[in-house]
């Protein structure tokens, strides 16, 4: 179908040119040609074969799933790609803490799948996958019916643990998946009187976006100083120290924001009482007017039900980082936050894992082996105030001895301090990253 429209587009272009030569005005020629060319470029950007050479089902339309669908169509030779996603739109987690301070709207962080469909010829199905048969390479949809393919790529993101006690996620929002939870936390912060106590918890690593909770704490501290004078922000970290960017976050927590932030490490939460807004911890009971409770994270239930969550703690899915095939089921690939690798769980590097997977699959469908030396990179900016940011980056090379992605020491690290320039660069980075993923 796509190929037919591609050929049609070219033919129209050709006709336009020759009829122009036959005596039409030059201006008309130029206009007609421009239209014909852009039409053929649009339709022909990634022409779809009438008979696909291979079919791939991608489950999950976040940073990893959307990127793998796009790049399979860009790089694959006549690969038919079907993306299955629950929600008709994606709301970016990246930048979503800025919604809490009123600097961003959720709509400015919302992305659709139209370009994926029109420019790259990805088939997008808004539905939920109830079950995966990893041997038959088939999925069962909530709406009824099944889809089958040559390979499945799973990119389902994360799921959250619950808590003992009376836990109400709406009274103690995580806001760690952008959307209604973000709005809820923003409203609770706005409604808090001055001199209040906000509690933010950080789960044991690995969790999504290692610097994320610290940057949110810094941003909220800066916002509280101005908007809620005399307020306190208690940060309860399950980890023994800052998980990442230790220098910048130490300086911010203990220097710049010391009047607001109270930082506790090695905090274990045994139960919660959402009615009285209390957390029961190894430090005793801790209460607040607003509690941003970010729970421990794991791969969603579908990953476990498919038998893929075979990491020692049973939380994530080990993969071969040359092609991201599951270690448990070779026809199912897993990218992004639900996989167990040495790489951080974050959108920027999930995009690169998607490219490695797309490249490996397009080679596989041609009877070739994956690239034996893939490189991936992670990069992000952290808000230290409402107008200044730091950055953090890492480059990973494949190590054939350990079969792991290992970070290159002198290519990995953070900025020395923070700046307004970095905050500007953060906006450029975000725009580029979302463009490379969704457009």
């Amino acid at each position, binding site marked *: 179908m796509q190929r037919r429209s591609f050929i049609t587009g*070219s033919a129209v*272009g*050709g006709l336009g*040119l020759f009829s*122009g*030569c036959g005596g039409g005005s*030059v*201006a008309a*020629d*130029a*206009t007609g*040609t421009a239209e*014909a*060319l852009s039409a*053929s*470029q649009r339709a*022909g950007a990634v022409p779809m074969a009438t008979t696909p050479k291979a079919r791939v089902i991608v489950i999950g339309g976040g940073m990893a799933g959307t990127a793998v669908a796009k*790049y399979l169509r*860009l*790089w694959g030779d006549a690969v038919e790609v079907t993306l299955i996603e629950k929600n008709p739109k994606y709301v970016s987690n990246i930048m979503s803490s800025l919604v809490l301070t009123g600097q961003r709207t959720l709509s400015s962080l919302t992305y659709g799948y139209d370009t994926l469909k029109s420019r790259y010829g990805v088939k997008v199905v808004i539905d939920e996958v109830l079950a995966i048969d990893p041997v038959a390479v088939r999925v069962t949809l909530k709406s009824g019916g099944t889809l089958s393919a040559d390979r499945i790529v799973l990119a389902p993101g994360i799921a959250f643990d619950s808590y003992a006690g009376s836990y109400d996620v709406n009274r103690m929002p995580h806001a760690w998946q952008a959307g209604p939870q973000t709005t809820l936390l923003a409203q609770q912060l706005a409604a808090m009187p001055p001199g209040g106590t906000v509690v933010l918890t950080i789960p044991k690593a690995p969790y999504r976006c290692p610097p994320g909770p610290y940057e949110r704490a810094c941003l909220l501290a800066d916002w509280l100083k101005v908007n809620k004078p005399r307020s306190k922000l208690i940060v309860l970290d399950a980890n023994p120290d800052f998980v990442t960017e230790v220098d910048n976050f130490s300086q911010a927590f203990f220097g710049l924001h010391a009047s607001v932030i109270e930082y506790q490490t090695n905090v274990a939460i045994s139960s919660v009482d959402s009615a009285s807004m209390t957390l029961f911890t190894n430090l005793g009971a801790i209460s607040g007017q607003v509690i941003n409770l970010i729970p421990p994270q794991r791969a969603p239930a579908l990953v476990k039900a498919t038998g893929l969550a075979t990491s020692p703690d049973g939380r994530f899915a080990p993969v071969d980082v040359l092609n991201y095939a599951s270690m448990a089921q070779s026809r199912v690939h897993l990218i992004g936050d639900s996989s167990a690798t040495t790489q951080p769980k974050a959108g*920027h590097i999930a*995009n*690169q894992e998607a*490219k*490695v997977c797309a*490249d490996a699959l397009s080679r596989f469908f041609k009877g070739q082996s994956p*690239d034996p*030396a*893939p*490189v*991936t*990179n992670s*990069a992000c900016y952290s808000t230290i105030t409402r107008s200044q940011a730091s*950055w953090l*980056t890492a*480059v*990973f*090379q494949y190590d054939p001895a350990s079969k792991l992605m290992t970070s*290159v020491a*002198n*290519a*990995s*690290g953070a*900025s*020395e301090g923070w700046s307004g320039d970095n905050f500007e*660069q953060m906006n*450029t*980075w975000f*725009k*580029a*990253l979302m*463009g*490379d993923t969704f*457009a």
Partner: protein
Amino acid sequence: MTHIPRCAVLAAGLALVAGLAQAQTTSTTGRLLASNCFQCHGTNGKGPGFDTIAGKSANEIYQDMKEFQSGQEGKGIMAKHSWGFTDAQLRDLSNYLSRQR
């Protein structure tokens, strides 16, 4: 619309068709390496994002990366990134990016 000679329009159209055909058979060496640049410089290095790198000469891109390594471009994020690749990898990704137009 500006006045464009008809033959030039025709030639441009043919060149586009030839370009599409050529793109199908172009070597993929360096493509996956170069794709590490796309998150910040746009798909195929064509933006939107930081500096557009598509279509610069391979040598120019390679030399830029060596300058980032030397520290003469400051202590920004690229000073780190440039050390993430072997010299052979830098050559491959530069060659790939130089062919993106």
